[in-house]
């Protein structure tokens, strides 16, 4: 009994420390910005840091907790971004710009991306093996290309849609083109602030931690660790996997909403919503540790800030970045070094672990 309580306490402390880390991080950075000590770069990086942290923890739910490989996370981000941005751009055209609109937009982004994840998950998560990786990889690329082909406009008579070009929309007087093919959405309203980003990140962290430690979360991890054993006690594997995947997609959609409203222009380029972005998010998760929510946030922050701080190397920036990335990966995941790190930690926490060592 005491053991269970211990585990529960540990989980609670872990969840609390992650949430506290976000709050303290926000408080420190906000006070640095308020005191006018931060460079324009630091100020500009705050919202992207929140966005990439949310992406990393949402993918961690899929990859780390439910054990399915998803290679199209940027696709869900893209859906959330465009779905919400169509709404806010339309509202801006009607003359409505307020925080309430943004909150609705966040919900729209979450629902749209979650729905996409749900629909994809239904057939794919019934299969065993790496099918999800293949399907999500294709999905991410398809979404990007579909959005590049869409022309959507609005005028006094309503929405108009075309796959050809913006002339084909035949917009009336005062109408605007919302999505202009490859150029995407321009003049989108900018709602994302550091405060909103940090609050959403905090909400996502709390939801995820509670979910992981809930009845559902434990079932999902049981299925990950041994599907046959879990099914033998009556757990519906595909249903639980679908639940985790849908939540992960919805959170990626929310990150997409923040992304879309942090910039004035939103275009589905290979750089921001393509395959490389999905891999970048996966790198955050792998470096931070599978299933480790706090680690995902830390690695997302480090790997987003790193290339910006390497600008001093000018032309060699990306070269240095990749060398550092390889080095970091080796040092964080090599088994021999893991032992070394744990030894070091146990020496630091000598008093605490005395009992353990004595037992040995």
């Amino acid at each position: 009994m005491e053991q269970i309580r211990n585990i529960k306490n540990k989980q609670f402390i872990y969840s609390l420390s992650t949430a506290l880390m976000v709050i303290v991080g926000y408080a420190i950075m906000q006070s640095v910005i308020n005191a006018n000590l931060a460079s324009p770069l630091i100020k500009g990086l705050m919202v992207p840091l929140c966005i990439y942290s949310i992406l990393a923890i949402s993918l961690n739910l899929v990859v780390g907790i439910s054990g399915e490989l998803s290679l199209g996370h940027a696709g869900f981000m893209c859906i959330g971004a465009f779905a919400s941005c169509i709404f806010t751009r339309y509202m801006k055209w009607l003359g409505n710009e307020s925080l309430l609109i943004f909150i609705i937009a966040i919900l729209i982004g979450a629902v749209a991306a979650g729905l996409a994840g749900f629909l994809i998950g239904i057939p794919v998560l019934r299969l065993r093996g790496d099918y999800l990786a293949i399907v999500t990889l294709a999905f991410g690329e398809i979404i990007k290309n579909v959005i590049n082909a869409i022309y959507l406009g609005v005028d006094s008579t309503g929405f108009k849609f075309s796959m050809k070009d913006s002339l084909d929309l035949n917009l009336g007087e005062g109408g605007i083109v919302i999505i202009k093919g490859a150029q995407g959405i321009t003049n989108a309203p900018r709602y994302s602030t550091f405060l909103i980003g940090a609050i959403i990140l905090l909400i996502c962290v709390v939801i995820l931690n509670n979910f992981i430690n809930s009845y559902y979360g434990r079932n999902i991890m049981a299925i990950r660790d041994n599907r046959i054993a879990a099914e033998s006690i009556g757990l519906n594997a595909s249903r639980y996997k679908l639940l985790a995947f849908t939540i992960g997609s919805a959170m990626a959609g929310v990150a997409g909403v923040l992304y879309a409203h942090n910039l004035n222009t939103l275009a589905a380029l290979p750089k921001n919503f393509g395959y490389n972005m999905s891999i970048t998010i996966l790198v955050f998760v792998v470096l931070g540790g599978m299933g480790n929510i706090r680690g995902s946030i830390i690695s997302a922050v480090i790997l987003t800030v790193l290339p910006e701080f390497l600008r001093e190397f000018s032309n060699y920036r990306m070269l240095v970045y990749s060398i550092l990335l390889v080095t970091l990966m080796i040092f964080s995941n090599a088994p021999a070094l893991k032992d070394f790190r744990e030894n070091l930690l146990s020496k630091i926490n000598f008093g605490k672990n005395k009992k353990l060592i004595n037992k040995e």
Partner: protein
Amino acid sequence: MKKILSFFVGISLIVSLAACGGAGNTQTASSNSSSGAASGTSTYKIGGIGPITGGAAIYGQAVQRGIQIAVDEINANGGINGSKIEFRFEDDEHDAEKAVNAYNVLKGWGMQILIGTVTSSPCIQVAAETSADNLFQITPSGSAVECVENDTVFRVCFSDPDQGAASAKYINDKKLATKVGVIYDSSDVYSTGVREKFAEEAKKCDFEIVETTEFTADTKTDFTTQLQKLKSAGAELVFMPFYYSEAAIVLTQANTMDYKPIFFGVDGLDGILTVENFDIKLAEDVMLLTPFIADSDDQLTKNFVNTYKRLYKEVPNQFAADAYDAAYIVKAALEDAGANPNMSYSELCDVLKESMLNIKVNGLTGENMTWNESGEPNKDPKAVIIKNGAYVGA
């Protein structure tokens, strides 16, 4: 023990690398404190932004080099009213978010004037930032209409619609064909922008667009289906509003299927004669509208091309030329305004906005270029035709 040793070696490596970065950072931080107010130095700080890594790197590098050549020349010739220029170029990876980061880095450095960005989508984003900050921006090659919507932004190149309209008019005036086919990149802003205006303008012309085919960035290696369609529609002229690397493939494949219409391109086609492993005989009689011709005879172009070749071992394309002009346009505007480097970026922006309307610049990409409030340049496109592996005025 060995493992532990390697661990420490690795850590010290990282720390020393970080220290390098850190040392540089402190410099920028010190100049950062005076970014808003007068910078207190006697040099102009001009920033540039563009993709120098990733898929669009060739365009960004060309711009970086073009500006660098111009800046070096200006500095060697005594600067702008005696003040030298400091130039720093930052990478945006052809991404709007990274472009904002690059812009913020340059602002921290103390940038007073921005030459950039190179590609359209980041340019629209950065234009929003510069207009919020009231910082003067001139883009060498951001050709989407939205790039210069704000009054702080001007551009050197033609806008996409201008090129489309000019091409349609040229084809109509010279009566090149009655049946025209179009092939374009539907995933590219530049290509779709030119195509759209071309189609709109074509409605007023005597020729008819018989077939429009498209491709995307993911399918730009095989054009046989598109060419077959154009061929069976009987297109006598094929309009190709995209870049030269794809155009080289189109020309090669058209040749193998024995389809020989007139190929007509816009400024992105400049550079086709430098494509590796491309038989330049296939480009014979290709026509293009472009503001810059590297083989041109005038002294300015000759000097620029020679310097560029000497430094970077390749023939400059129109991006480099636009960028080179941009630096000289900034110089002309600063001289017209009687500005000095001690003015803040906001003060400079206010005077430069006025001066841009007064100046007249002779550059590589046009003679007597002028600007109006919209930020668009006023210059004539030159139509050229490829004869015996060289551009000739048409």
